[in-house]
């Protein structure tokens, strides 16, 4: 899992933008002016910086194989036999398949239902098409995990860091050891006052 420390730009960007607006003395034109300023200040479209998506090693960029020459585009819905056989798709309705989310003509990007291309680093937008309530909670920190500082720089995780997009259900795990039962506690000499 790749993680890098990032600033809580979600919160900081609008504030910065507002500050810029006030500094230039255009306080009346708040919302329209604030948005482009925030866009310029942040590297991702929305100003949310996220760690690198958890790709299988060596699989990205996808265009290394899917260049339109070595592997020809085949939009027919089918079971994959030659490559990506490890991927079992148990996400959503049965009719769902690869090119619903992966852009057919540009494999290094994902695509929304509208056809709009999305970077892998902004995959939460894709998830949010169906899971809008989760996206809303994630943006304000209710859903998902944040680490770092409660009053400062935070590290966010993408949806796909916890939920495998092809099999999104959270995997069960072995619990750490339980506490010792009272009857199993061994009294050592001088152990209690």
């Amino acid at each position: 899992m790749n993680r890098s420390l990032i600033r809580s730009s979600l919160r900081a960007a609008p504030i910065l933008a507002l500050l810029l607006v006030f500094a230039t003395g255009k306080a009346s034109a708040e919302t329209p002016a604030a948005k482009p300023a925030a866009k310029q200040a942040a590297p991702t479209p929305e100003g949310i910086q996220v760690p690198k998506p958890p790709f299988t090693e060596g699989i990205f960029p996808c265009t290394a194989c899917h260049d339109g020459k070595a592997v020809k585009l085949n939009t027919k819905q089918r079971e994959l036999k030659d490559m990506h056989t490890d991927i079992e798709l148990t996400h959503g309705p049965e009719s769902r398949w690869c090119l619903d989310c992966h852009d057919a003509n540009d494999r290094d990007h994902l695509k929304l239902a509208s056809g709009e291309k999305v970077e892998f680093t902004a995959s939460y937008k894709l998830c949010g098409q169906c899971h809008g309530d989760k996206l809303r909670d994630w943006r304000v920190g209710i859903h998902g995990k944040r680490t770092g500082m409660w009053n400062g720089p935070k590290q966010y995780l993408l949806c796909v860091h916890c939920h495998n997009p092809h099999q999104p259900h959270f995997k069960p795990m072995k619990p750490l050891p339980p506490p010792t039962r009272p009857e199993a506690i061994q009294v050592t000499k001088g152990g209690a006052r």
Partner: protein
Amino acid sequence: MTDQETRVPAQGCEDTSAACGAGGRREFLGAAVAAVATALTGCGKVSSEEFLQHNFRELSKDEVAQVIARLEKEYKDKFKKDVKVATTEPIPGVIFGYALDLSRCIGCRSCVHACVKENNQSRKPEIQWIRVLEMDKEEGVDLQHAEQYYNPDEVPREGHFYMPVQCQQCKKPPCTKVCPVGATWKEKDGIVVVDYNWCIGCRYCMAACPYGARHFNWGEPHIDAADVNPVTHYLGNRPRPKGVVEKCTFCVQRTRKGLYPACVEICPTGSRKFGNLLDPKSEIRQTLETKRVFKLKEDLNTQPTFFYFYGV
């Protein structure tokens, strides 16, 4: 100039025995008290400085510095490594709040063991500040049907949900009310703390706490020196002596520096939310305002600042 003038009698002290009278008497009294204390309590290890130390809240800045220096030296001698003891004050304008998502917790106990490591709990005898309860989905939040010793191969188990319980940092803490010596109190940022050097080990607070959140050092706490977390706070995770009560402090040594508590950092499901209750933009406030929230044993009017919620 005044510094030099006042220093003169002190320098002359070595020569004239009359001027040394006050110091000598104090030393004698200190030694005598320590000897009596040793005889009465049977605690040979308690130094006279430790025995004569006052409640932490009554100490002057100089006295605090002395106490910290003494403790750091004791820990250095004991663990053969540098252990820093901080006395970081509450941040003004901050009251800590905590929320735990019952619909997400899978009962993996990562938090329990991360807490033990971070907060220098005794490994033997074992002390854990967080207890994870396995509950029946059919029964709901009913402590009659809670199991804390569950140990299946995989969690979550079918038909069960999990409820970690730790100190609820109550707004009206019954534990601090019953302490006969004032060794435990609520700080300005809402954290209920214990002065381990002032605690007499009567365990009234444990009887008063309806959440079982306080733990007693029945035996000499043991931690391998390599496992000791050297970043500590006087009121938090510094190594404790035998015979005192300890509890969750929201990782006071971390949170007063702006860090998340260790349990929040480790939780693999992101079930744990922490922040400033006075900041409307904080995760904790967003959670309280938009989710279905409840407090454990609300009817007791302890008014916890620890909340449980359903994220789904």
